[in-house]
């Protein structure tokens, strides 16, 4: 078994995506805490030697050093999920998983940015970002309305995949950047089902009901 290390910041939602994957797969790992806010440690020379983009998360798995959240999720699923549940390879499902996983890195990047502006006080046009994030969440809600009508509870397959995992934090954390859940009934339903998956864990901003 290779040794896994995650360079992590607890309040960063992309790090949370990787923590979720590690938790669902039950993988032992080490966490290296990076002072992202306020220290910008991920942009320093030591961290840029691992990831020239100067961003988190970064994953070390044995000799492999990976950056890019979606790439890390795909790697963990391929390398450590023997049953292939989180990243199914059947062509019809795989392509849907890819579409929605990329959606989380493209259309939803405004949601991630909006949260950074709102939570960490970084510069940026919050209203424009929120507007774009709302449009992306609507596309997701529309999709899940149809999926539910067709009898499915997940974005791309009849079980949760890395597509669901990579999309979910932007919705679960949307109140952090001022978008409520009222308008997205199909996403509320999906979030509730996701929350009860074995291995689910929260992060600050996603309430732990106790």
């Amino acid at each position: 078994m290779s040794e896994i290390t995650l360079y992590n910041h607890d309040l960063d939602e992309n790090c949370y995506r990787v923590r979720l994957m590690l938790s669902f797969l039950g993988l032992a790992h080490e966490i290296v805490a990076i002072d992202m806010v306020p220290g910008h440690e991920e942009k320093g020379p030591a961290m840029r030697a691992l990831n020239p983009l100067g961003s988190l998360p970064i994953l070390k798995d044995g000799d492999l050093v990976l950056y890019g959240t979606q790439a890390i999720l795909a790697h963990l699923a391929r390398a450590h999920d023997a049953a292939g549940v989180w990243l199914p390879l059947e062509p019809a499902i795989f392509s849907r998983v890819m579409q929605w996983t990329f959606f989380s890195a493209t259309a939803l990047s405004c949601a991630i940015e909006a949260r950074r502006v709102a939570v960490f006080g970084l510069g940026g046009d919050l209203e424009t970002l929120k507007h774009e994030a709302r449009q992306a969440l609507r596309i997701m809600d529309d999709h899940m309305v149809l999926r539910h009508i067709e009898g499915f509870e997940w974005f791309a397959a009849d079980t949760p995949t890395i597509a669901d995992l990579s999309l979910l934090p932007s919705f679960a954390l949307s109140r952090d950047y001022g978008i409520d859940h009222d308008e997205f009934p199909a996403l509320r339903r999906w979030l509730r089902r996701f929350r009860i998956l074995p291995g689910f864990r929260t992060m600050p901003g996603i309430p732990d009901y106790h």
Partner: protein
Amino acid sequence: MSSEAAWVPVALSASIEPGTSAGAVVEGAELVVWRDAKGVAHVWEDRCPHRGMRMSFGFVRGDHIACLYHGWSYDTAGQCRHIPAHPDLDVPKTIKIATYAVEEAGGVIWTRLATAAQAADPLPTMGTNLPVRSLYADCSAAHALAILKQTLLPVGKGETCPGRLQVVTPHVWTLEAGALSLSIAVQLIGPQKIGLHILADEGAADLIPHLARWAQALRLALEEPVTVAEVA
């Protein structure tokens, strides 16, 4: 503005599962809609008396809903029953959340933002319905009516048919096309924001996916900027 005695929709019944809560806004008033574990729906003011946290962020346990901030827990009458920081305290009767009348009819949760003393309008009759979806759009009710007058509804086999729109009450519209009959429960959220809770008659089961796509396209039409020529 609707009269306080009117029944107004806040959600499709199917969207509020037992043991869950959600926020809903009616003409600027923030509400929490929640369903207890026994399946009974409740509509309250969306505000915890402790520090004003929205109750819709909270969580349902059995027949209580608890606030997310400090866990104050309320029974189905809105009465606070438990304060975790003072577990032995006999909670004063004054710690209570305003509750509103609730009825479920035709697949929709209705509420009345009035005190019990006011005479109530009769509950809207909607028949038996299959939920299509709730659609939220940034436009006025008047604009939605104008757009819906010109809509083409899917009626099966890839065909569409102009819908006949009827305004039964400010909160209940119907659209008919051939054998298809749609009911729309209209939630007035703000001057430029509405929620349309769309349901189809029982015979339309096969059309539901098409109707959901129609609704999705409808939102684009509703939010398209109105040109000056149209306004004139």
